[in-house]
């Protein structure tokens, strides 16, 4: 009941204050919902940080259905909100239709490229972060075999796998990298049972560190890894807390920084493609009280060194999506 009240109250408050807004930034959350402990929540955290630091406010909406995408975008644009930030690649098509209609409004889309003059497209160099956690996995592995479990078999996820394999091989040239995809349909993002079975299969083939880039399926991977006493690596947001002492680290996509940057720039938002990588704090690995003991001093030094090299351009990690192939891993 309280949830219902909250929804009603928010809707009512939005309706009442609709006329008052002037050039406030707006944030649209994708279908996963604002508190998804991952992508959308990170975006919210970034906006919240901006609001606290500047004392200003922002408008937000959680989508409830596919049909609301365009509606929400147009409502905010007509209301004079600027810039309008949205999370998720699914906004791509809608935004390329809506953006030309509001040339004065700036839009920022995360995880997708929309080629319009008033759109800022934020993309992440996931392969760089995967490289870093791949290094850590190889250093933590005693068996010389590490695993990767992806969600749906799409180029983006292969990019994760490819970066991971490169990182692991950089540490130990003889290492075996096992790679499995959960499936080829969107159901692969939410099938923890399959995730568990894949984890068990990889463990029986010798893997003792497994990296999951698989959304809800990853929950099953991390759980089984913890149950079977091996290490796992989380993805997107910091998942170290899920099994303290059993999750080696997490590959972080700093969606919060992307949102924070966009809101800070405000109406003068720089458009075009904005690449968030290791160099500008867009990609990182997680280190907190839950995995301190697992990440030794040597490991930290090595990874931070690689991080510096990637940032300075001395080391380039191959991006699978650039030529649809991977030097260190066969799919």
């Amino acid at each position: 009941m309280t949830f219902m009240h909250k929804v009603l109250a928010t809707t009512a408050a939005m309706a009442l204050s609709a006329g008052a807004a002037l050039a406030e930034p707006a944030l649209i959350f994708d279908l996963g919902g604002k508190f998804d402990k991952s992508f959308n929540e990170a975006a919210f955290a970034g906006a919240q940080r901006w609001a606290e630091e500047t004392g200003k406010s922002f408008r937000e909406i959680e989508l409830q259905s596919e049909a609301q995408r365009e509606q929400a975008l147009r409502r905010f644009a007509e209301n004079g909100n600027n810039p309008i930030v949205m999370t998720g690649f699914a906004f791509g098509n809608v935004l390329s239709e809506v953006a030309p209609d509001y040339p004065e409004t700036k839009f920022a889309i995360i995880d997708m490229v929309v080629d319009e003059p008033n759109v800022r497209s934020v993309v992440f160099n996931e392969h760089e972060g995967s490289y870093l956690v791949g290094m850590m996995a190889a250093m933590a592995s005693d068996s010389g075999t590490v695993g990767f479990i992806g969600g749906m078999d799409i180029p983006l996820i292969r990019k994760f796998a490819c970066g991971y394999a490169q990182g692991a091989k950089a540490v130990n040239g003889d290492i075996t990298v096992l790679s499995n995809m959960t499936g080829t349909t969107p159901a692969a993002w939410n099938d923890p049972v399959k995730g568990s079975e894949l984890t068990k299969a990889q463990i029986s083939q010798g893997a003792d560190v497994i990296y999951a880039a698989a959304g809800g399926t990853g929950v099953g991977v991390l759980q089984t890894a913890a149950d079977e006493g091996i290490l796992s690596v989380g993805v997107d947001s910091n998942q170290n807390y899920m099994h303290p002492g059993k999750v080696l680290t997490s590959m972080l996509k700093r969606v919060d920084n992307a949102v924070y940057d966009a809101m800070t720039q405000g109406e003068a938002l720089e458009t075009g493609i904005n690449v968030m990588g290791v160099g500008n704090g867009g990609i990182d690995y997680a280190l907190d009280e839950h995995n301190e003991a697992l990440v030794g001093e040597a490991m930290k030094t090595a990874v931070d060194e690689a991080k510096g090299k990637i940032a300075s351009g001395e080391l380039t990690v191959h991006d699978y999506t650039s030529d649809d192939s991977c030097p260190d891993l066969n799919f």
Partner: protein
Amino acid sequence: MDLFTILQVLDSTVRLATPLLLACLAGLFSERAGIFDIGLEGKMLAAAFFAAALAAITGSVWLGLLAGIAASLMLSAIHGLASITFRGNQLISGVAINFLAAGMTVLIAQDLFSQGGRTPSLIGKGRFEPITLPFAEEVIDIPVLGPIYYELISGHSILVYVAFLMVPLSWWVLFRTRFGLRLRAVGENPAAVDTAGVSVVGLRYAAVAICGVLCGIAGAYLATGLQAGFVKDMTAGRGFIALAALIFAKWRPWYALYACLLFGLLQAVALRYQNIDLGLITLPVQFMDALPYVLTVVILAGFVGKAIPPRAGGQPYVKER
């Protein structure tokens, strides 16, 4: 491929086949009584959520199991009400149940736990732990049979053994009891059952309720046996594969066991060996994933014997006046 690898694939088969088997038997009871049920998926999902939610709140997996069964029974009651009492279209009611479960579980999960439609991870008594059968440790050194007993037969959670015991039990109930005879009759010719003075509505409700209980166990097994918590849409189409298995098994309990084990084996092999190299051609993993459905179509097309559904299936019973 050595014995150990084969055993691991078979072990995985058993785990993957268990939810399919329970859901398949659930569908068997319902459809044998003339109520088509494509809401198996939704019932499993709701059961998975409520089992995980109650286990997370109370810390007792048994209360979770009961909550899962209760949730599944509720949805069964809705299906029964719509398709038996109000004589609505059974397929539409089933679809509605699937949607209802998919939306409701995430909504309630978000309200209770605020973790993006998940339940917290279950720990300790909140999960069904694998049970080691007696003498499993002692016999492991016996060649072949020892590892088979230790790896394959022992070390599953109690619900797996329940699921496998359900097969002979279902067979006995359906084919060796008066209740079973009437239940099957009501799916073939409800008018005859009615003429004999037996309540068609009562029997159909009983069948739908049994279906609810079995789906409830299946869902609880997913969330508290195989996993340690609920994730949105975690059934991932297993209810539909169970329906395919039901057709493949031609609506018979023992065949249902074989069909589910076969489908489980296909999944396990697909998970273990992504692409299978047969020398001349390479079987892609997608082929293995699609195989259950392909086999079902082959069966339906009548290539391997005939699959004849219960004759009164899908038709609401209207008493003649």
